[in-house]
């Protein structure tokens, strides 16, 4: 049972990452492969504020979102100069640069040693105190954040703002003719998605209670991308299904009888092949409405 709760919590975290990345990649058509960087900035902010300053989790979450938002704004400013292949390549670069900072700014992040002992969240209001120190309570918290992300994403994509994003994806020049300043829209959604990823990062740090740079590599960004490509571009349901499938995949492989280190590699093989096969036969993913 504990094991299922663990998987469900991981699933919620990755579903938030998938939902947020889909806003950028699926709805706006920008192939960003740097999501793990923002996920990491959120996680590190929470980790540092909780262990060094004993701050409340929820305060750290908000600060993490703000810091990530500012950094995403700066990165987005540079990225908005590019499109297509170059956009993807430069976003690779930012992931690697942010990862290098996690690894090398040892005074702040303790580098490869990582930050252990990150506290679980607790909520104190009007004399009540809830500690999210059991796994089931933490899962409840993660699901609340997942639902919040879901409703935020759907309200974004069903608003007029969301329609402009889709128009940018389909034909940026055409929507510019109508007087929309498209770089502003692209930057806004990029920053919003990054802030949502920061929430996932804060949850992850507090849940696992230990983080190190190896969680936030380029491979992690590719993994998040695989979630939405599998589930479906520009589909919220797709992000959820993709996260569910890719989180369960290594468990299924382990269940079939692979030892766990091979299962981890087998997962890479399977999702690599899935990416190839989807591109060959169904580039929009399972539930997607958009293909590159």
């Amino acid at each position, binding site marked *: 049972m504990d094991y299922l709760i663990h998987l469900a919590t991981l699933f919620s975290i990755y579903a938030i990452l998938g939902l947020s990345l889909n806003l950028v990649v699926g709805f706006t058509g920008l*192939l960003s492969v740097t999501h793990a960087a923002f996920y990491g900035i959120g996680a590190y902010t929470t980790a540092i504020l909780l262990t060094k300053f004993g701050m409340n989790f929820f305060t750290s979450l908000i600060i993490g979102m703000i810091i990530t938002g500012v950094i995403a704004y700066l990165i987005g400013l*540079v990225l908005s*100069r*590019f499109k*297509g*292949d*170059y956009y*993807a*390549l*430069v976003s*690779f*670069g*930012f992931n*690697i*640069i942010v990862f*290098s*900072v996690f*690894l*090398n700014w040892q005074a702040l992040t303790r580098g490869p040693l990582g930050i252990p002992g990150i506290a679980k969240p607790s909520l104190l209001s009007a004399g009540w105190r809830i500690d999210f120190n059991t796994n089931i309570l933490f899962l409840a918290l993660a699901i609340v954040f997942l639902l919040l992300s879901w409703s935020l994403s759907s309200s974004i994509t069903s608003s007029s703002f969301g329609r402009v994003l889709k128009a940018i994806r389909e034909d940026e020049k055409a929507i510019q003719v109508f007087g929309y300043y498209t770089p502003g829209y692209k930057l806004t959604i990029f920053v919003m998605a990054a802030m949502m990823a920061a929430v996932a990062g804060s949850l992850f740090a507090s849940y696992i209670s230990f983080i190190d740079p190896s969680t936030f590599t*380029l*491979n992690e960004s*590719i993994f998040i*991308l*695989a979630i939405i*490509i599998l589930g479906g571009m520009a589909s919220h349901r797709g992000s959820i299904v993709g996260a569910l499938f890719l989180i369960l995949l290594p468990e299924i492989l382990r269940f079939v009888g692979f030892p766990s280190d*091979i299962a981890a*590699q*087998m*997962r*890479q*093989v*399977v*999702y*690599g*092949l*899935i*990416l*190839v096969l*989807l*591109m*060959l036969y169904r*580039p929009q993913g399972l539930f997607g409405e958009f*293909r*590159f």
Partner: protein
Amino acid sequence: MSILPQLVINSIIAGSIYTLVALGFNLIYGATKFFNLAHGVLAVVGGYTVFFFFKEWGWNLYLAVLLGVILAGFIGYLLDKFIYFPLRRRGASGMVLLVASLGAFTAIQAIIAILFTSQFQTLAQNVGGQTIYEITNAVITQTQVIILVLGLAILAALAWVLKYTLFGKAVKAISDDEEVARIVGINTDKIIGWVFFIGSAIAGLAGIMVGFDTGIEPVMGMALLLKGVIGAIIGGVGSLIGGVLGSFLLGFVENFGIWKISGEWKDAIAFLLLIIFLLFRPKGIIQK
């Protein structure tokens, strides 16, 4: 004692390895116009083939290297035949091809990790016992001299082939306009298949060289690929000489960049260089 000469030598060695990756990447990009990310993993294929035949089975070194190069080329060819070619024929966008190549990259890298574990392995047999040459305070190993010479030889050979043979002219025609090339009777699919073979074989050789110089591990492909791509882009995509200049510039900037700070920053420095170039000189050193 100054470390300047050593830095120069390190930069040149790094530059020649990046050049090899960039050469193949440039060739393939020129003909197909998409970022073939799987290019990096072919270097890993080359390295591990030599590891398998030379170190585990004890075969002859030259035979193992030859097999490594051919296998890398062959897998590159297969990727084109079974993945990129069908996609191209359907008129898929560069992004679809990019994601597909990313998938191929991930899968092949993981298969290699399953077969050979994720451990760092060296190909050289007498570690530390290599012949070393000294040039004014700096050392260069025999392996590194071979890397340098072989790198230059391949560059020259490739330049000659592209310039003077019928095949080279066909590649150039395809790079300019594939459709027109086909109309004038060039079998573009076959030529592109060969381009994949040659480009991937050169990448395989780069992986083997890295293996003899330092060592190989399954995850090295991405770093190597990105360096080659950065070299190719800052040099000017599609230009052979540009790719060489870009790769050497990258080698120098990277190695001099870490003169005063930790070596772990190398990758970040490489990407900063790329971003600066893309912002201020997007077409690279040699503009086409």
